């Protein structure tokens, strides 16, 4: 490793950082404009062309606002919480491949900050650390609404993190690797010669679970319970102002971009797309960036669309969806993916057992999934009148 390698690394880091920071600013502006259009309003349109610089102005304004520190706060933790949130949000995108590959002289440069063997596991790890920012903010504020908002957000985040982790695990099983560049590479090529070999087609159940899970993970509508204004004021960041509030805001919107990028990487082939013979050149790599950005934008559009369309979910239904439907379904899907992988590999050796095994597999999948559907009618009833819980209640009285 010499100076040129270091320069390449610094260049890649700066490029990714700029892409994500500009993307966040554009997202906030784009969301306001788009939601305004969907609600027959105009939206921000004064600063710059079509109000493009509105986010910059808002950010600058927050810098010059009074940085209020309420009396009751635990000072160290109170300052650390927004720091953790924002830094973690920035670190998360390190493993996302956001463009193609090109060569400078002898060196092959991939547009990706960091490509470790743990790959997308880094994203899950960082989203777990991100929970600290929220729970510490809620706890250290020394105020009731932030405390309740903080524990609520935490419960929501960890509940959906399970489904997200397991649906990504199905992708890991299917592609046999955690490394994000190898997951992307496994998705190049064509299925049946026509459609792209993206994981979204064979792993469609995992994709749907992962999509719902990331909407809940980023606390976007209809799962924006933590900021249910009517009951919690603003949730865990109620007592924050100035740049500390701006950091939570930045983290929240940057996470929207990052999780979209994770979905694109795991299910939609990352920067994969027709390169028109430009493979290995700088233009080809930049074309990869264009494909990547377009795919991410498609997800972001759906996120904003959801916000304009759906009312907020009730908290017990949110938890019930996460624990009773998505968790067993994603677990069953991981096993189904595992079975598919082993079956495809050992296909030749078991020609005689093929029939019985298929039946067995079908039965076991049914057995795994059955409880989900048998409980489905229970979800909408008030929890009090479920008759099958009566013995359990008696037990509790006895204790």
């Amino acid at each position, binding site marked *: 490793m010499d100076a040129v390698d270091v320069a390449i690394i610094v260049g890649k880091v700066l490029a990714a950082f700029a892409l994500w920071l500009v993307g966040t600013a554009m997202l906030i502006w784009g969301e306001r404009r788009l939601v305004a259009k969907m609600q027959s309003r105009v939206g921000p349109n004064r600063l710059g062309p079509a109000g493009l610089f509105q986010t910059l102005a808002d950010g600058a304004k927050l810098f010059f606002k*009074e*940085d209020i520190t309420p009396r009751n706060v635990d000072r160290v933790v109170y300052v650390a919480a927004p720091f953790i949130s924002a830094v973690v949000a920035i*670190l998360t995108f*390190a493993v996302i491949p956001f463009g193609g590959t090109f060569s400078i002289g002898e060196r092959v440069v991939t547009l990706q900050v960091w490509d470790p063997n743990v790959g997308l596991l880094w994203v899950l790890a960082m989203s777990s650390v991100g929970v600290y920012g929220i729970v510490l903010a809620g706890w250290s504020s*020394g105020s009731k609404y932030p405390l309740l908002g903080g524990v609520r957000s935490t419960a929501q985040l960890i509940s959906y993190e399970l489904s997200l982790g397991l649906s990504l695990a199905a992708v890991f099983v299917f592609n046999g690797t955690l490394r994000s560049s190898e997951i992307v590479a496994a998705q190049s090529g064509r299925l049946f010669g026509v459609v792209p070999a993206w994981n979204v087609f064979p792993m469609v159940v995992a994709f749907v679970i992962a999509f719902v899970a990331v909407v809940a993970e980023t606390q976007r509508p209809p799962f924006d319970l933590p900021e249910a204004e009517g009951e919690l004021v603003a949730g865990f960041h109620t007592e924050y102002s100035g740049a500390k509030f701006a950091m939570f805001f930045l983290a929240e919107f940057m996470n929207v971009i990052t999780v979209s990028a994770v979905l694109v990487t795991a299910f939609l082939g990352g920067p994969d797309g027709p390169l028109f013979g430009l493979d290995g050149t700088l233009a080809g790599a930049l074309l990869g960036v264009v494909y990547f950005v377009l795919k991410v934008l498609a997800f972001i559009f759906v996120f904003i669309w959801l916000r304009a369309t759906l009312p907020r979910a009730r908290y017990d239904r949110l938890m019930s969806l996460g624990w009773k439907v998505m968790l067993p379904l994603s677990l069953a899907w991981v096993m189904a993916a595992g079975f598919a*992988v082993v079956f495809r590999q050992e296909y030749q050796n078991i020609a005689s057992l093929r029939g019985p095994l298929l039946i067995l597999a079908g039965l076991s999948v049914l057995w795994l999934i059955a409880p989900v559907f048998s409980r489905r009618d229970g979800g909408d009833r008030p*929890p009090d009148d479920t008759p099958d819980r009566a013995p359990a209640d008696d037990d509790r009285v006895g204790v």
Partner: protein
Amino acid sequence: MLAEYLPLLVLFVLAAGFVGASMLLSARLGPSAPNPAKQAAYESGIIPEPEADVRGSRFPVKFYLVAMLFIIFDVEAVFIYPWAVTLRSLGWYGLAVMGVFVALLFETYYYILRRGGLEWD
């Protein structure tokens, strides 16, 4: 070996610098005119009562149960990741072993479900 982590270090320094500088700068640039009402905990305009430490106050024990369940199933997920990578070399044996493990945990899950541990009262 450690050089592999250099990009992450560079990104961390950049992130920490950006976030830290923003927070410091804002604390310096903004006006500072504290008064008792402004520094009180926000409770929609009414005087917060009791002023005692909210951090020691109570909140539903339900959240604790969620955290415990999360740990059980997250540890399970952690076992699945290395299995996902090595499944191709483990073959049927690996699938069967993980099947037993997942089935056992699923039994636990079913018990919790039937006992009403996932109901949100």
